[in-house]
């Protein structure tokens, strides 16, 4: 154990927008290391876990959740101004999350379908990643984020270096684990070849195809994989494979738009009508 350096510990804020709280919970789930880890920082804002509040400034701000209301749009801009380093944690903040599926449908119809008084509900037509609104310094992916990656991110921040997070597809984790390929051996549609690793190839290890929750691997030919799934399947069935927790990330987004799969209103077509509305103007 070393004493805090003379300059003091870094001040850290953890905030959320539209999300399930799961990525913040990943921090509390560090358990054995939690007290040591939080001892390295000055956690000044973490309303899920502490009644001590701070309106900034922050050396590091961890942001969970996507931007889906006018207030959130204002708030993220304010928070960016108070944060030296802003890191998005999880599929919602980094890609829009599952709620970004509404970006393909008529928001007013969705709102009216869920709430008796849609006029009481304030929300934007879209749920969008933080990066569409403000500059983001680093992103952690996953639904939820992976604890090893969170540990590495915090270590890198404390040490003042870039995080070393491996950029490779889920397939490589499958190979390391010695999994039989569910795609090749069982013909199960699996997004592993075009999805960023980080989960340890959980789904194939548990006998099912990857559903892409860490988002598209950079430069992966997702379209080609989607085309290969068409053999024996309808286009919308293939579209739905990509219409998950990172659907709004390209190239998954284009595949969902073209193939369909977000058919929330059973009578309506799957069109990205709202994808260009609201939330994207910053």
């Amino acid at each position: 154990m070393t004493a805090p350096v003379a300059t003091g510990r870094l001040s850290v804020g953890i905030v959320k927008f539209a999300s399930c709280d799961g990525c913040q919970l990943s921090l509390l789930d560090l358990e054995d290391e939690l007290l040591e880890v939080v001892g390295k920082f000055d956690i000044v804002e973490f309303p899920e876990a502490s009644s001590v509040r701070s309106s900034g400034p922050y050396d590091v701000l961890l942001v969970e959740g996507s931007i889906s209301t006018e207030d959130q749009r204002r708030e993220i801009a304010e928070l960016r101004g108070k944060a030296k380093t802003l890191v998005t944690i999880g599929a919602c903040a980094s890609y829009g999350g599952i709620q970004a599926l509404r970006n393909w449908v008529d928001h007013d119809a969705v709102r009216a379908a869920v709430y008796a008084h849609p006029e009481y509900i304030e929300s934007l037509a879209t749920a969008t990643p933080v990066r569409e609104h403000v500059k983001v310094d680093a992103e952690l992916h996953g639904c939820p984020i992976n604890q090893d990656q969170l540990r590495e991110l915090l270590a890198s921040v404390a040490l003042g270096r870039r995080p070393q997070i491996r950029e490779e597809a889920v397939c490589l984790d499958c190979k390391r684990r010695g999994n039989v390929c569910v795609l090749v051996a069982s013909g199960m549609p699996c997004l592993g070849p075009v999805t960023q690793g980080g989960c340890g190839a959980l789904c194939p290890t548990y006998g099912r195809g990857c559903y892409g929750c860490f988002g598209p691997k950079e430069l992966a030919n997702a379209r080609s994989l989607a085309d290969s799934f068409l053999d024996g399947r309808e286009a919308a069935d293939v579209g739905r494979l990509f219409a998950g927790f990172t659907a709004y990330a390209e190239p998954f987004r284009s595949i969902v738009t073209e193939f369909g799969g977000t058919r929330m209103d059973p009578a309506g077509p799957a069109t990205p009508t709202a994808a260009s509305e609201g939330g994207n103007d910053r």
Partner: protein
Amino acid sequence: MTGTNQLDPTTGPRPGLDHDFNVSYITRVEGEGSLRLRVRDGGVVEARLSIFEAPRYFEQLVVGRTPDEVIDIVSRICGICPVAYQMSAVHAFEDLFGIEIDPEIRALRRLLYCGEWIQSHALHIYLLHAPDFLGYPSAIAMAADHKSIVERGLAIKKLGNLIMSTIGGRAIHPISVRVGGFSRVPRPAAFDELRRVLDGVVEAAEETVRMVAGFDAPDYRREPRLVALVHPDEYPYNHGRIRSSDGVDLPVDRWDDAFEELHVEGTNALQARTRDGEVYLLGPAARITLAAGTLHPLAAEALARTGMAESIRTNIYWSILARAIELLHAAAEARDIIDAYHRPAEPRVPWTSRPGRAAWATEAPRGLLFHRYEVDERGFVAAAQIVPPTSQNQAAIEADLAAFAPAVLDLPHEEATLRLEQLIRSYDPCISCATHFLDLRIEDDS
């Protein structure tokens, strides 16, 4: 998110006599909400919890999806209780499709749910709620003086997460639950590591009961209408009948026969009432009161030793003790299930879809969670209704706040806020779940 928690005097008609104030962001709960109290002549005329957690429209996100996709999607409603959402959904579909699951699969699902209860209850008792009783703003601050207590809570929570990840691949949004069973089931040896620490965790849960029974809770008494699943042979998780303290007795798929959801202005959560417009309470206190006969013997003995069953029923501040009793139950039952575990021959049974109404309720850590789906001829969900426990408890929280607040309104604002927040935290509200949910603001109308 950017302000401090405070009771803000707002401009009212009579400056100086003005008691209007608000808690703009309730901390140490899951999600975003606020509380506003309207005061007239020293009495609270209205307590309103506002949920400003952004709406995510889950009931529409699942339309057009297959049952297995729905299981993956609804878990994202809540990072703290994803298994609850998966369980209510999977049982609803299996009931509609006429699927009989293997008894070992049924036991594994119960074990998975034990894991979720353990991590969720340990999180709430030790990290969110105990700081209220011991006088700290957070568990992190509490750890400076009570390190061994916080470490005990974290060790219990870790075991819960380990159960979930062993069965479900990961603790947050597990991936193995499928209609008909699981995508893969663990070998018995997979439980060896957690079985080695489980005896210690059962002892730690017993110590938790002793610790919280010694806390000093505010004096408060009311006679709430309680609702929970009740099963003749087992503490309610996945199966049972919907029972209330005043005579409701319904099959698990017929919640909507006796209860309904209402949309109230100023909140993104729908609130539930009985069809007669009455307020009711779900969760650990309701379950222990209605289903005490099915507690694990270790938990039943621990409850008897406290002699506080009546306090649990009538004073919501003692929900922390109810949660501790359930923590012990879940740890003890998890041990029993693991000791009896045989790997099922098949991870899941084959099934075919059929159209109709799929409905089920299970007991989430925070209370009864009802799902209803309409499945179409092609096997896709055409409509959905998801009724989380916090939106059902919201009216009860507001009623308790209105009843309790007059006793604290004369206290300094900061202390009044703390006392009212402690009351709210006693419900372990999960606002992320209830966005269809909480700022404390008190307005004096007199």
